[in-house]
């Protein structure tokens, strides 16, 4: 017999208690808002898909990590798009995706540009989509400068998720990130610009929180500029009621033509990023499953099917099968219940706290170990210790940068390097050759848990490893 008390008494895994919160430990009204939103709920990202439409290209600030002239189909990062859409085109694209991707639950407007500065186009798109597709959730991203002007409309339009990019709470630091802003028809530069932006961001955050809108804060980690400072940002946005904090690495390359790229400002290493994320743990909940997707991304978080839905590929007539969408959601509820029961069975280990297992998982969704090693586009990284199983983040296998080609290394050795810190790799199936290479690198390939739930499988593996280890190990 499984009693619900088991979870409350400490049986829940750590990943279900952090940003990854699942229904067991979240207020019902908050859960209702996030449960189908892959970006706001780590749990939901196993089941639901999002799409962005790039309908609002105008922006009111300049960031040193952004170059507005840049566009590349192979590049996967925020702010990059292949085609801009008018609101009418954007609506057609949303409906076409909804017709063929039943997982689609969220429409976001996230650049390039600022969804609230270019508000007329954002609003026109949302209004038209909601008329045709009432079961979709709306969300938007903003730099916050225009936010206070639109809070009431945001609430009236039922947009219950807003992401604000907040890279600083100290204008001295802000001046190193933002060369200028454009506010009330005037350009401001330097310290004054950063001060205005900061004040507007805090005001907007407070106004949204006061109205019950869930706010996610995105911060770009820029080594040497705001790395230590982001811990203070985390503290401040938590104090003000932000729901989730997402610390993302700066993506910087001279080829992108950004100020930071051209001046040699580097992005953080995975270790530097993790250090700041770990230091923020205990502040506002951290998002660890972000994939830094393109501003026209379509699909589950780990995939981008945007190229299947470019304007020239949209069908003439679009019919949405609402029964199919509804059936998909019912199916997900059933799967979730199973997953929740499985999580309840994960009990904390009575073992030395020093025992830690780091595991890479190949999944294509549904919270299951269901991806063939050779088909994996990314790995989810988990850590198991005496306290339970916690989710550390996702690692993409191949960032296909514009340079193209595979370079010197074979893709297999790059995968090995990507998960070198892991003790084991769980997948649905793996061939003999990669098996040998992984094992030689000290990463045990395991397909014994094929098609089983991720966290309980890791817990079982952890228990097995602890039982097998010598008592004094």
């Amino acid at each position, binding site marked *: 017999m499984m009693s619900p008390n088991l979870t409350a008494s400490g049986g829940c895994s750590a990943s279900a208690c952090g940003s990854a919160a699942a229904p067991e430990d979240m207020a019902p009204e908050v859960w209702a808002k996030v449960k189908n939103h892959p970006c706001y709920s780590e749990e939901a990202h196993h089941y639901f898909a999002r799409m962005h439409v790039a309908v609002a290209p*105008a922006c009111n600030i300049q960031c040193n990590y952004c170059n507005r002239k840049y566009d590349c189909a192979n590049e996967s990062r925020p702010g990059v798009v292949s085609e801009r859409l008018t609101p009418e085109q954007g609506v057609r694209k949303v409906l076409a995706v909804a017709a063929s991707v039943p997982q689609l639950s969220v429409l976001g407007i996230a650049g390039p*540009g600022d969804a609230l*500065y270019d508000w007329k186009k954002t609003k026109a798109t949302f209004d038209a989509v909601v008329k045709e597709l009432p079961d979709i959730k709306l969300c938007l991203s903003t730099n916050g400068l225009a936010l206070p002007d639109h809070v009431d409309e945001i609430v009236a339009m039922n947009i219950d998720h807003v992401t604000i990019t907040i890279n600083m709470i100290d204008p001295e630091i802000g001046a190193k990130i933002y060369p200028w802003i454009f506010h009330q028809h005037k350009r401001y530069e330097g310290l004054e610009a950063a001060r205005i932006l900061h004040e507007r961001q805090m005001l907007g955050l407070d106004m949204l929180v006061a109205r019950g809108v869930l706010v996610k804060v995105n911060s770009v980690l820029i080594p040497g500029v705001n790395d230590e400072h982001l811990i203070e940002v985390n503290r401040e946005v938590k104090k003000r009621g932000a729901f989730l904090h997402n610390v993302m690495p700066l993506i910087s390359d001279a080829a992108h033509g950004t100020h930071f790229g051209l001046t040699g400002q580097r992005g953080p290493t995975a270790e530097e990023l993790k250090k700041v994320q770990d230091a923020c743990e205990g502040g506002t909940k951290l998002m660890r499953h972000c994939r830094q997707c393109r501003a026209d991304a379509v699909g589950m978080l780990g995939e981008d099917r945007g190229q299947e839905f470019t304007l020239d590929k949209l069908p003439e007539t679009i019919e949405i099968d609402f029964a199919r969408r509804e059936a998909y959601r019912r199916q997900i509820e059933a799967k979730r219940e199973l997953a929740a029961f499985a999580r309840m069975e994960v009990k904390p280990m009575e073992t030395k706290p020093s025992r830690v297992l780091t595991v890479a998982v190949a999944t294509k969704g549904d919270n299951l170990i269901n991806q063939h090693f050779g088909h994996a586009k990314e790995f989810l990284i988990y850590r198991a210790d005496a306290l339970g199983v916690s989710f550390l983040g996702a690692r993409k296998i191949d960032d296909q940068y514009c340079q193209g080609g595979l370079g010197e290394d074979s893709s297999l050795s790059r995968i090995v390097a990507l998960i070198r810190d892991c003790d084991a790799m769980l997948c649905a199936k793996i061939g003999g050759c990669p098996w040998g290479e992984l094992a030689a690198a000290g990463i045990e390939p395991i397909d014994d848990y094929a098609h089983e739930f991720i966290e309980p499988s890791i817990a079982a593996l952890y228990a097995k490893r602890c039982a097998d280890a010598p008592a004094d190990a």
Partner: protein
Amino acid sequence: MAYKIVASQCSACGACEFECPNAAIAMKGDGFAIAAAKCTECEGEEPRCIGVCPVEKTIVKA
């Protein structure tokens, strides 16, 4: 007296279009263009189109 948009530089974001107090800017082809007859160069104020344009040296004296 008017400004013009260097087409090869324009990222077509449209920010200048709605900042222009004279409705002098509109989409033209793949980018935006300024109707010289309507442009007042913001009458001695900082030109708003230049202030908001994200690409330096895109809006210049005609």
